[in-house]
């Protein structure tokens, strides 16, 4: 128990006072983050901060499937889409429904989880490349359905997407309006930040507890050697379905938050590149390692935004813009990915045991 708590919070063995100071500082930093970011970098970066949290939830969901159970899923965004459309359909003028958030959030998790089982069931006997192809197809099918389900009955409003999605309201407090408490005012982006933060922490907790449980061990066993897992009495079929369902439900939660955050959903937000992006977060950060995955999500959301500054930087350095920033962004982004995977094949922040296996001598684990 204590060991796991330490694993969650920080390095074990550090003196307890220093650790509690760190914990307090960490909590303070998380609570003050939107204010600090707003003051230092501007309002646009608070939005980036919100997106980092949103993608952290997604990446942690995919991490269950890819990182824990070792099932390569290239269609993960489908579950994000299911959650987003569920919220959009039930809280927008499209059907005139305005179901409350507290009902839609668990519903999104549940329905996305069911879709996870739907994807998992036919792929139970597939491994590696073959599984990847089927999941890729599944992701595309969901997107194409969303795109085409506007006739004969207009379910999804087709490529136009669904607009005017109602913002989340908790106990009469709308996330979309600026709220004032005493001298502090909380614009919409701040409100969403705190909501996302709470749910992200919840998902981190669930992920961590699952990882260090009987279920998490069985997933790891399947990842390492499915045949040996079976021979050890693990019902690999059920546990793979469970991994798909759990991962998908996190995606569904993130999706419903996204729909209300954006106020608009359309099929084009849920393409293959989105799936690949989430997969990159998991792999780049460190598969199966929660802290690594969070780092991966933060970097991959923030990096494209940071690369926007290339334009102003050029102007400042050379007096004019030589290369369009939009041309450079994807190039640098790709280059960063290649470099990371070349130099740190186990990810930027791999779990200790994986680092030992995959790491180069430079990245060796300290003895102990």
């Amino acid at each position: 128990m204590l060991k796991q708590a330490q694993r969650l919070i920080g390095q074990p063995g550090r003196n307890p006072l220093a650790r509690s100071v760190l914990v307090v500082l960490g909590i303070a930093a998380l609570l003050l983050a939107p204010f600090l970011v707003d003051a230092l970098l501007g309002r646009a970066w608070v939005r980036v901060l919100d997106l980092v949290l949103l993608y952290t939830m997604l990446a942690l969901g995919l991490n269950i499937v890819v990182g824990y159970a070792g099932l390569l899923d290239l269609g993960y965004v489908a579950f994000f889409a299911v959650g987003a459309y569920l919220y959009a359909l039930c809280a927008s003028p499209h059907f005139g429904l305005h179901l409350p958030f507290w009902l839609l959030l668990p519903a999104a998790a549940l329905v996305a989880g069911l879709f996870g089982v739907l994807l998992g069931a036919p792929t139970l006997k597939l491994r590696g490349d073959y599984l990847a192809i089927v999941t890729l197809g599944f992701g595309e099918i969901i997107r194409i359905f969303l795109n085409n389900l506007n006739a004969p009955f207009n379910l999804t409003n087709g490529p136009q997407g669904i607009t005017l999605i109602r913002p989340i309201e908790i106990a009469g407090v709308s996330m979309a309006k600026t709220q004032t408490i005493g001298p502090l005012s909380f614009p919409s982006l701040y409100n969403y930040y705190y909501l996302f933060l709470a749910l992200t922490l919840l998902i981190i907790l669930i992920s961590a507890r699952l990882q260090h449980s009987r279920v998490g061990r069985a997933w790891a066993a399947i990842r390492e050697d499915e045949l040996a897992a079976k021979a050890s009495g693990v019902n690999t079929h059920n546990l793979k379905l469970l991994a798909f369902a759990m991962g998908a439900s996190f995606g569904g939660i993130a999706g419903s938050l996204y729909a209300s955050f954006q106020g608009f959903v359309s099929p084009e937000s849920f393409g293959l590149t989105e799936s690949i992006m989430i997969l990159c977060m998991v792999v780049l950060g460190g598969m199966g390692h929660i802290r690594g995955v969070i780092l991966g999500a933060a970097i991959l959301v923030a990096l494209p935004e940071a690369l926007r500054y290339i334009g102003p930087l050029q102007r400042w350095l050379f007096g004019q813009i030589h290369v369009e920033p939009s041309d450079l962004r994807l190039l640098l982004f790709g280059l960063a990915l290649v470099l990371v995977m070349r130099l740190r094949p186990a990810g930027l922040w791999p779990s200790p045991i994986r680092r030992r296996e995959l790491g180069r001598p430079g990245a060796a684990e300290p003895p102990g």
Partner: protein
Amino acid sequence: MSARPENADGADAADNANNADHVRTAPAAGPMLAVRSVRKTFGGVQALADVSIEVPRGTVYGVIGPNGAGKTTLFNVITGFVAPDHGDCLLEGVRLTGEPVHRVVELGVARTFQNIRLFHQMSALENVMVGMHSRSRAGVVGAVFRTPGARAEEARIEGRAHALLEQVGVAAHADQPAGSLPYGLQRRLEIARALACAPRLLALDEPAAGMNAAETASLRELIVSIRNSGTTVLLIEHDVRLVMGLCDRIAVLDYGRLIAEGPPALVKCDPAVIEAYLGTPVAGSPAAGPAP
């Protein structure tokens, strides 16, 4: 070696061999494992041709035979990895054939692999803890809410896993990744993982392969201690000396057929066995020479 009393049991079991249906009605008196006329072909190759054996409870039962004799196929049929074309296997009268692998484990058959299959990136302790999966219950709810039941179970799993590591002599390496252990310890760890399934029948597929003489000797002690603790052991092995000294009964396979069955002393004098192993009857004496 306390082989004598089991041999007496074995003789009883051999009497029952021809009317195996009897086993289902009186499981308590029957053998631990009954394999009934199992047949399996791969393409045109007959891997197993009507093989029937009965493994008496509380014994070490050896299956030997030249390469390609069908030993591993027999193993895979018993443990549910391969479905036989004909015939079935019963564990104390309960049918194993047709059940998925994890159910076979639940019913009481655990196995190791010829080429060790550990979870390399997991620690030795975790490997054994995975073995207890079928003997524990906690699901997602227990894990997420850390219910008292789930915590108690987790403590029980960990305690038992430590005890098993102790038993096979890997306790000093409990926290090391399984893949980093020396070869001999990996073999032992795999046995510990199989024992964690709390099997009534432990099936070991060439556990002494690649071991030196000292490692083989201590492996032998381990297998004896496992048998003495009440678990029946089914052993596939190439090391004839080990098999002859350790097993209470032996079945010999050749080209998928059962060519001999019985106590080691009888089996090693069997002309069919000598021929299968050596080809010529003349050279038979040196191989069969060292008596247990």
